[in-house]
């Protein structure tokens, strides 16, 4: 009995390893083929005495409150409100009585879609290999049971089960009402949380029926609403998380406050891969309020560091400045990003690469007598710089348990890594995930969790909140990869693209993350889709094409950064498409429209943005207008940027954006996410650059890693295309990829100069 848990854990680790190298062989056939139950409440779901559990997603209180279990983390994208609304719609609940609650960490709530999306095959590729990979990845996602928020997958993953849960709860309530009123179910009507029998005038609220409804078995077959009858979805709805975010009451991880807790400040080795050689903490230890000063070793997920634990954060921080530390800088003390860039640029023209997509005959197509276009592009490392500095609160209790509070995109990983660090079974770990003060991919990492639990383990029964300074955050991020790219095209006499070759040189985010989480499973065997997404899977008609990637390994850790590979590949591809249009003497929108001849949905988005931006009327004097287009996370986004230069400073004055995410569940959130993603991408295009000298990141805080601010934020107009539920796509990330190329293409119109390296330098 007691031995089964560790074995389970080991098996899980094996499964991840197996999955990451692309094989499903280690997986039992029964579990593979079993349909996942996404309705029955998991044991981890707890209810109070006044609450009835109606499926694993809904608790109904006798006072009528509907509490939706939301297993995705709120980091600004509005997910808690969107998911709660989906349930409310199918239930016909009174939206004023709908609340949300952080779901417990349980495989029931796992996000399988995120892994299902991660295969390096074009969408139309229905080959056995592609299909096998998709199914395997999705099934793997189900079996690993990782609760995670990312890849713009939340709505797509939850859409069916949460609608089903709402409909099932509604059916249970109807059956309870029918029994109470002594009538048939079809004689009843439901609206706004009230069930009525019009003929007799009998009525009951959901709250009044809660207890009886809880006794009805969960129906497996329920009819979902015809979307034409949606009353909440598809219309702007106020977000549930906004009231606490305007009065200071919203609790982020860093706001965790428990009586008797201590605070820890940290300095990590400034050189990647280094360690602590010696430290003198005498002075720091003597400071009033300091509990302990010690060093913690590097792990596969976290850097070696010196930590001060004190009664208050400021004491810890002040004492940390008094610790004298000698670092063993290790093998990367000479690492330099300028030299790295040179290496990458050399590899654009020599050496092996892995092909992500190939069609037609590139060499033969190049033989014509049309124009040739070639261009090299470059993007630097980027930091996430979430507004809430990285932090984690933890306690390891002598009774053999661990509790962790952390704003995190993958609570399941928090649980596993806290357990491993504390040397406990994961069933002994409780994870609380308050609001995230920004995620953008940074909060997939478990570095701070491992460090906090190491500290808590040393100081058993003491609750410690570890806070990284902004400087620690910026110098110990997992960065968006540096990448170099070469594009070559041949155009025929009519300006059609007859040959397209693209080579990208970069590290792999997925490989880097795997090496951190599971060093033993790290392998280059499987291609990481994210290196080449947005480059190999284009909707453009390119009959003769090769898209290839050169995989690099560097001591700088890289990670997922809002829209991941798309954010850089859209810059490469869309800048180059613009160069091809110019070489062909064609209008950039018309040129793209022709390339989208096989993609009517995509064409519509491009045509809409052109129309709304007034593309066919000249911009005001001194203003350049540029367009870019990108499909990512199953959504299609086109943007037109208008730029001007005043006193030598580039200013983006206006961005017009069109988006097709299939169906805008909450259109106001779609607009907000486009606005957000555009500003995020614009910050990268205008300012973002992380450089490394002597193994150390040179930027350390906002003054040296600047942000777009109110004064430099453009006016943004967003237009939504609802092409249908069958095209449901993500919304948190797809707004970011097109903005950098749209701005650079606009700048070309204005100045005649191409920007081929970011950030933009005039």
């Amino acid at each position, binding site marked *: 009995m007691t031995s089964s848990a560790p074995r389970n854990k080991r098996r899980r680790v094996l499964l991840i390893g197996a999955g990451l190298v692309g094989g499903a062989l280690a997986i039992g056939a029964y579990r593979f083929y079993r349909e996942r139950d996404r309705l029955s409440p998991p044991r981890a779901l707890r209810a109070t005495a006044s609450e009835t559990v109606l499926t694993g997603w809904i608790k109904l209180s006798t006072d009528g409150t509907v509490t939706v279990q939301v297993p995705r983390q709120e980091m*600004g994208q509005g997910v808690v409100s969107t998911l709660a609304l989906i349930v409310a719609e199918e239930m016909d609940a009174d939206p004023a009585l709908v609340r949300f609650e952080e779901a417990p960490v349980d495989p029931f709530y796992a996000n399988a879609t995120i892994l299902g999306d991660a295969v390096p095959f074009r969408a139309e590729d229905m080959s056995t290999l592609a299909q096998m990979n998709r199914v395997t990845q999705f099934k793997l996602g189900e079996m690993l049971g990782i609760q995670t928020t990312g890849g713009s997958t939340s709505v797509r993953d939850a859409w069916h089960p949460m609608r089903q849960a709402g409909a099932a709860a509604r059916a249970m309530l109807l059956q309870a009402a029918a029994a109470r009123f002594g009538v048939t179910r079809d004689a009843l009507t439901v609206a706004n949380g009230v069930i009525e029998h019009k003929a007799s005038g009998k009525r009951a609220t959901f709250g009044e029926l809660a207890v009886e409804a809880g006794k009805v078995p969960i129906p497996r077959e329920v009819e979902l609403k015809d979307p034409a009858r949606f009353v909440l979805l598809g219309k702007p709805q106020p977000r549930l998380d906004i009231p606490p*975010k*305007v009065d200071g009451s919203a*609790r982020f991880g*860093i706001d965790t406050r428990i009586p008797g807790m201590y605070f820890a400040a940290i300095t990590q080795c400034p050189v990647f891969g280094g360690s602590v050689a010696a430290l003198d903490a005498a002075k720091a230890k003597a400071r009033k309020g300091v509990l302990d000063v010690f060093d913690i070793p590097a792990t596969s997920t976290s850097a070696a560091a010196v930590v001060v634990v004190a009664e208050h954060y*400021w004491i810890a921080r002040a004492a940390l400045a008094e610790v004298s530390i000698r670092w063993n800088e290790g093998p990367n003390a000479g690492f330099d990003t300028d030299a790295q860039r040179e290496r990458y640029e050399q590899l654009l023209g020599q050496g092996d690469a892995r092909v992500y997509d190939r069609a037609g005959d590139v060499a033969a197509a190049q033989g014509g007598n049309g124009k040739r276009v070639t261009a090299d592009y470059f993007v630097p490392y980027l930091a996430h710089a979430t507004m809430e500095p990285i932090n984690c609160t933890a306690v390891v209790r002598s009774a053999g348990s661990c509790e962790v509070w952390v704003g995190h995109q993958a609570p399941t990983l928090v649980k596993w890594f806290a357990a491993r660090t504390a040397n406990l079974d994961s069933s002994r770990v409780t994870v609380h995930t308050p609001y995230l*003060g920004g995620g953008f991919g940074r909060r997939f990492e478990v570095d701070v969790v491992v460090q906090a639990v190491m500290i808590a383990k040393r100081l058993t029964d003491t609750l410690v909140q570890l806070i990284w300074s902004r400087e620690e955050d910026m110098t110990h991020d997992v960065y968006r990869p540096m990448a170099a790219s070469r594009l070559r095209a041949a155009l025929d006499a009519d300006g059609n693209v007859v040959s397209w070759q693209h080579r990208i040189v970069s590290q792999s985010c997925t490989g880097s993350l795997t090496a951190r989480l599971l060093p033993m499973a790290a392998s280059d065997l499987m291609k990481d889709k994210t290196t080449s997404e947005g480059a190999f899977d284009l909707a453009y008609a390119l009959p003769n094409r090769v898209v290839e990637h050169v995989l690099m390994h560097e001591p700088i850790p890289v990670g997922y950064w809002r829209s991941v590979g798309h954010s850089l590949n859209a810059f490469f591809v869309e800048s180059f498409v613009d160069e091809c249009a110019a070489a062909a003497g064609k209008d950039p929108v018309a040129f793209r429209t022709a390339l989208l001849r096989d993609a009517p949905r995509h064409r519509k988005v491009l045509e809409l943005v052109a129309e709304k931006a007034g593309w066919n009327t000249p911009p005001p004097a001194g203003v350049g207008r540029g367009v870019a287009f990108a499909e990512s996370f199953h959504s299609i986004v086109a943007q037109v940027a208008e730029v001007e230069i005043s006193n030598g400073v580039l200013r983006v004055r206006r961005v017009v954006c069109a988006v097709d995410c299939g169906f805008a569940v909450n259109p106001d959130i779609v607009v907000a996410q486009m606005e957000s993603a*555009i*500003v995020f991408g614009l910050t990268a295009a205008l300012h973002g650059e992380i450089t490394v000298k002597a193994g150390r990141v040179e930027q350390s805080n906002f003054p040296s890693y600047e942000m777009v601010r109110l004064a430099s*934020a453009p006016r943004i107009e967003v237009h939504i295309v609802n092409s249908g539920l069958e095209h449901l796509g993500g919304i948190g990330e797809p707004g970011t990829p097109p903005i950098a190329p749209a701005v650079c293409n606009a700048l070309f119109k204005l100045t005649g100069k191409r920007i081929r390296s970011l950030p933009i330098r005039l």
Partner: protein
Amino acid sequence: MVSFVINGNAVEVDVDPDTPLLWVLRDHLGLTGTKFGCGVAACGACTVHLDDRPVRSCVMPVSACAGKRVATIEGLRQGDRLHPIQQAWVDAQAPQCGYCQSGMIMAAVALLRANASPSDADIDAAITNVCRCGTYARIRRAVHAAAANMKKARGEE
């Protein structure tokens, strides 16, 4: 010991006088609505009011607050009702992750106190805080709306 008035109530805190006001608020007074963002006065997440003027509390030693009035986001609500600026924020659905919003709101309150009908340029100059979610357009809209509503409430139209 440093004494000052916080959201209308007198307090006395026993801390090193060099401690930044931010950490006194968060760790000694339990007022976690004011946020730590950068520690170098570069992002504005920690904006509070010192005698009605906006200050970045992460670099403001608490000793500089002795005998003065400090106001934080927690003190903005007027009884059960949101401050008109908070209401404008809700109406504009401005916050996303929300982490920077306390500082943004405090900067906006200070701006409207000094300038009842700010222009876009006035807003640009007064609100220099960082929002990583890019809520700037909605913040601008909310400031204008709050200015209009506050004028209306004063009967100025």
